[in-house]
């Protein structure tokens, strides 16, 4: 599977990203600057973390629509612990991640126990978790100031700790997916659940794990969001799930399961963030930005599927 994906796909995504950067650089005088780099890298940790978790779920053949709401739960719990209870930041962060993990475990347990499609279960949690975030914060934004400044510090080259964390977790996730037995089991379940069962893989266990991971990473995404805004907003991360799906899909992850790459998802996140920053630089209006983003998402996936078809045809003609 890894060999047949090959480098050409990453190359394709990298070229797309480079083309966007180049294009915006030519169209706008100030796009190529350290400031832009900082803006982009600052904005993406939340999206990147949520998209990584979602990619795990997608590869195993499910979907997690609740990542945005779960990130809000983490932020809300953190805000409540710090602002209302006066807990130390580390304890509050632990509680926030714990709450997010619980959300993921609930998703996994419901999908497994009731044999319900994950689309529906996580759609339920998309609403339910959002409601919980409002309840926890009493529907108010809690201003926390510099409590999570650590994540926003820029130790190297203007890159924030949150961004570096996202990069490190991307690398870890990539390792897990491509170099561990767990990764193989995710691919097996996502590709052919019955065949996976017959070689001794437990689809139930695999689902419990991926939804747990997805919840935890969504929680971390929520903390990054709190760090960036200096506030816990119960409305945070709404629509995050759709951006995360877009990033994964641009990266070539299949919504049917069995196929996906963490590195490609990360490049997908970079493409979305670059597009957003670039269009903002050009002073494009908000409605127009959304139209362009939509076109790029569909266009990228279409171009990739055409590329894959051509590559497959070439392999058939030349290979055998």
């Amino acid at each position, binding site marked *: *599977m890894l060999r047949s994906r090959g480098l050409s796909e990453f190359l394709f995504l990298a070229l797309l990203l480079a083309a966007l950067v180049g294009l915006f650089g030519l169209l706008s005088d100030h796009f190529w600057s350290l400031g832009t780099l900082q803006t982009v890298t600052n904005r993406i940790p939340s999206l990147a973390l949520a998209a990584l978790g979602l990619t795990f779920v997608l590869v195993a053949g499910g979907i997690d629509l609740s990542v945005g709401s779960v990130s809000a739960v983490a932020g809300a719990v953190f805000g409540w612990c710090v602002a209302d209870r006066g807990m130390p930041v580390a304890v509050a962060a632990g509680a926030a991640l714990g709450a997010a993990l619980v959300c993921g475990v609930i998703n996994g347990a419901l999908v497994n126990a009731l044999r319900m499609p994950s689309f529906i279960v996580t759609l339920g949690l998309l609403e339910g978790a959002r409601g919980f975030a409002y309840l926890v914060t009493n529907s108010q934004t809690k201003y926390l100031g510099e409590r999570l400044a650590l994540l926003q510090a820029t130790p190297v080259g203007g890159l924030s700790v949150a961004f570096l964390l996202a990069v490190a977790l991307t690398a870890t996730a990539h390792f897990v997916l491509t170099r561990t*037995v*767990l990764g193989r089991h995710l691919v097996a379940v996502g590709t052919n659940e019955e065949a996976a069962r017959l070689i001794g893989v437990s689809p139930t266990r695999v689902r419990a794990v991926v939804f747990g991971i997805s919840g935890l990473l969504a929680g971390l995404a929520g903390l990054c969001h709190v760090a960036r805004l200096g506030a816990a907003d119960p409305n945070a991360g709404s629509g995050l799930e759709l951006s995360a799906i877009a990033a994964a899909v641009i990266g070539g992850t299949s919504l049917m399961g069995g196929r996906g790459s963490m590195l490609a998802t990360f490049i997908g996140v970079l493409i979305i963030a670059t597009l957003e920053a670039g269009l903002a630089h050009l002073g494009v209006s908000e409605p127009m930005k959304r139209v362009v983003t939509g076109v790029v998402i569909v266009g990228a996936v279409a171009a990739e599927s055409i590329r894959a078809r051509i590559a497959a045809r070439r392999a058939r003609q030349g290979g055998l």
Partner: protein
Amino acid sequence: MTASRLQVRGLTKAFGANTVLRGLDLDLAVGEIHALIGGNGAGKSTFSKILAGLLPRDGGEISLDAAGYAPRDRRAAQAAGVVMVLQELSVLPTLNVGENLFLHALPTRGAGIIDRTRLASQARAALDRVGLSGLDPETPAATLGVGHQQLVEIAAGLAQECRVLILDEPTAALTRAEIETLFGLLRSLRARGTSILYISHRLDEISELADRVSVLRDGQLIATLPARETSRDQLITLMAGEAGEKAKATQSAGKIGPVLLQVRDLQAGPAVRGVSLAVHAGEIVGLGGLVGAGRTELLRAIFGVDRATGGEVRFGPGLVPVAPGSPRAALAAGFAFVPEDRKQHGLFSPLSVQWNASCARWPQRRRWLGWLDRVAEAAEAGELLSRLQVRFSNLGQAVAELSGGNQQKVVIGRWLRREIRVWLLDEPTRGVDVSARRAIYALLRERAASGAGVLVASSDYDELAALCDRIVVLSQGRVAGEFTPATLNPAAFLAAAFHGFSGTATSRS
């Protein structure tokens, strides 16, 4: 018999290298019920599918009422008046009975709006014809039992005027009362001149219902006989061919060891109704029987893919019970299962040859981390695939691109990477070319010689005869006979296979 309705001369059909029909002849008269019987692979289903326009023929002539008959598809066959009621149910559960009956031609008021009144009256007439006058056409199909769904299916077949009606095992899911209804219907159709081709394993039904019976073997007509005057034993002898024709002994010369797998009174759903058998170390045991005898279901229950509803599976030499309903427990006990449907249940089709060969056990560098050793993975997969002589271009090639035989070698061979004590294989050589077939036999013999136990389900009599040390025959979910190569002969084998299908009224739920 009166005039001829359908004349088949020299019909041939092959699927690749596998020739199914070898010059079949058959005559069907106007207004007769004509039964068609034969063992597995005799060509009954292929023949009826050609008649119904579901398969093209390779050669031969068919004439229908003295005119040439060569339907392009099912629709053309129906237009010519040849209707087949398919074995698998195609009733749509979300629609009601009437909609199901006339889905191909719903009466409308124009602009695509369904004329419900006309639909209901048409449906009622069609239901009357199959003796289901009590059934409201507005009933949702999902609420019907399997038997009634089957009758609705037949009613749908009869909703159109038909000259030839083909039924393939129509009573498999019916209760005695429903069977009576169906037989009454078939007799009244016969009286109106419809010719009925009736395929069944149930020899008792045939003598009760049919006028004539044709016996097929190896894609040829063996005999057409008056159904009532022909005994069950005569039919079985005809289906089997010359007894003892192919008795040979190429069995493993190895020693038979202690019991490795013991199955006691195992039950699973309606298909497996209390099976007991044992497989010893060094032994290849064959599982024979007609299609639908419960072989697949038995293997799945032993491996825990489906949960057994009664009985137990033990793993020797200590005869330790194996937890039911868990393939993981079965694997831990040293069982491996090779499923019948390679594409659906065996292969990870889009993934690479290497992936598919390695997935039974991944080579690891750090066990606690599950860190794969990718160098060893490639090396071990390459070594395994060359040992099995699998033809592939590179390890990254998608396994879907391999031939059926090579795919099967991968699905079986992946288990060589584990210590497997009991091999459970379901139709391991289906859709596999001759050389791969030989390789698979050699592999299984070699495994048995090294002390494993092997249980092989097969529909192929010759395969069972050539491969196995012992053959257990299932019929209607029960053990109906057991043979050694010395006692095996086709007639006795078929008699056992048909055994459970007698006494129709009692053996059915």
